[in-house]
């Protein structure tokens, strides 16, 4: 038992064995004359196989790129006529009036504000909790409990978002109203907690939506961070333990620095989800005639919930195009978030 923790270099010989095995096709060829020809033919066949496989996988990869490109293109083509017919400023207007195709007035300012605010708030709530759960599951919990608890978290991801929406507005909103009232009363001078454009006690606010979104993105962030933390090399953990680090010090010295880029990537993944969440937000947020004040106690629509709310009326091309334009902005936004996440995750690998 010289490597009791199983972190010896065993996988390498195994991998080499595997690699050797690919080439070592049983050579029957007993006839010395045939042998040269035989292996040559086999080798060229394998090369052809390689080429076919390389092309196939390249094609598969390309399909994805093309699909994404086409989606973007489709959105853009459908949106451009409506954008040209827009009588309001697309980026700064708070209106979204598409009833009269001859006088379209729509802008994404409030959609952007509500989307970003609710998602950022959700992220702020979910990330620390997810990190805490991941640390608990990987470093503290007994193995059996860890598995049970981990499964439970994953189960949370399987709850339909419509259920989260109903729970959010009917159960959660009344429950957290006192907190919202308190924040508004004592910290109302701070813009985020200022009185919003919908009823505070009604609960149909970004505040409520953010909490629900936080619960919804918690599983994915937890699952990813948990996997990353689990990968922390045993050698680093033992180095810290041998210096007399307590469990928390081990986490601080090895697990968190090792998992930092993974944690960021997980958060970005969660953010992507929150930005695109539709039904739950649609159910929770109350609409308002007044523009947003950048307050958590505003109501309104996110990009996704706005589009969903109008889905029944997508008949005329021009009004529909207005919503597609909003969808395009959401598309770009989530694309950016994912690109940032990827860049951060790759930087972690390069190091």
């Amino acid at each position: 038992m010289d490597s009791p923790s199983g972190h010896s270099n065993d996988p390498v010989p195994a991998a080499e064995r595997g690699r050797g095995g690919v080439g070592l096709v049983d050579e029957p060829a007993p006839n010395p004359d045939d042998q040269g020809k035989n292996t040559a033919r086999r080798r060229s066949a394998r090369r052809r196989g390689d080429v076919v496989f390389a092309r196939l996988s390249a094609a598969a990869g390309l399909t994805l790129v093309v699909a994404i490109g086409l989606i973007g293109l489709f959105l853009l083509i459908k949106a451009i006529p409506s954008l040209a017919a827009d009588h309001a400023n697309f980026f700064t207007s708070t209106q979204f009036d598409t009833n009269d195709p001859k006088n379209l007035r729509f802008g994404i300012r409030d959609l952007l504000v509500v989307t970003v605010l609710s998602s950022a708030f959700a992220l702020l709530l979910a990330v620390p909790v997810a990190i805490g759960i991941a640390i608990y599951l990987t470093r503290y919990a007994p193995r059996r409990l860890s598995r049970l608890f981990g499964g439970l978290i994953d189960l949370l991801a399987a709850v339909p978002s419509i259920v989260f929406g109903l729970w959010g507005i009917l159960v959660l909103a009344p429950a957290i109203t006192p907190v919202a009232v308190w924040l508004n009363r004592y910290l109302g001078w701070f813009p985020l907690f200022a009185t919003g454009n919908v009823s505070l006690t009604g609960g149909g606010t970004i505040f409520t939506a953010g909490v629900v979104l936080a619960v919804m993105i918690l599983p994915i962030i937890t699952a990813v961070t948990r996997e990353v933390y689990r990968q922390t090399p045993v050698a680093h953990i033992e180095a810290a333990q041998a210096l007399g680090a307590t469990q928390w010090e081990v986490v601080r010295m090895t697990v968190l620095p090792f998992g930092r880029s993974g944690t960021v990537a997980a958060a970005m993944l969660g953010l992507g989800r929150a930005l695109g969440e539709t039904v739950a937000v649609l159910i929770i947020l109350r609409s308002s005639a007044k523009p947003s004040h950048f307050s958590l106690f505003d109501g309104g629509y996110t990009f996704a919930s706005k589009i969903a709310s109008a889905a029944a009326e997508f008949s005329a091309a021009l009004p529909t195009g207005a919503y597609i334009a909003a969808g395009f902005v959401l598309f770009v936004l989530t694309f950016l978030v994912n690109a940032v996440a990827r860049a951060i995750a790759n930087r972690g690998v390069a190091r």
Partner: protein
Amino acid sequence: MSKRIDVKDLDIFYGNFHAVDSVTMAVQPRSVTALIGPSGCGKSTLLRALNRMHEVIPGARVEGSVLLDGEDIYGSGISPVSVRRTIGMVFQRPNPFPTMSIKDNVVAGLRLQGVKGKKELDEIAERSLRGANLWDEVKDRLNRSGASLSGGQQQRLCIARAIAVRPDVLLMDEPCSALDPISTLAIEDLMSELKDHFTIVIVTHNMQQAARVSDQTAFFNLPGAGRPGRLIEMDDTAKIFSNPNQKATEDYISGRFG
């Protein structure tokens, strides 16, 4: 600073697997004690039991006692964390903290013990790096990552990190097995310097190394597959390598061992 270790009737287990059978041995202060024997004989396991690193593996436990200058490190009320702060360890593979600078690596243990003064940390970092014969090679790049060093330098960095907290005992688990001969020589030279200050216990597969660096040698063997490893004999290194008492020891050191 340098303390003696008395192992008494120590049995070591992984869950139900009995890994080491009833070891009794004494490790003298200010000396190098080598643990040798075939793979799987339990020498690394025993080493890890000496600073309570063994028990970080789920299900691992020991029976018996390990006395550090008369005090049982497995006694009730003794926390493994405090044991590990006074008994340092160097691992088979160099394992500096990759996200820390060279200097931060050296003083990591001191930071854990609450030493805060920058001047004090700088002084101890220099003293420890000098003690590990690494200072001249890294003094111009103390703020670079520890991962930027070569394997041999990383291992000396780990030794500097272990001695920075002035431990009573230094445990080394095959510290040269991942290193080239030059780096190995550097570490062996270092060991003979360090034994003036520390009690050193080293596990090695390299018998020449054991013969070169150690004062005492303990030979472990495995009676059979699935059976626990046991201490065959322990004596002065010169005696073990010239005229051991047991036939098994002689067979092993002369290479006549299966």
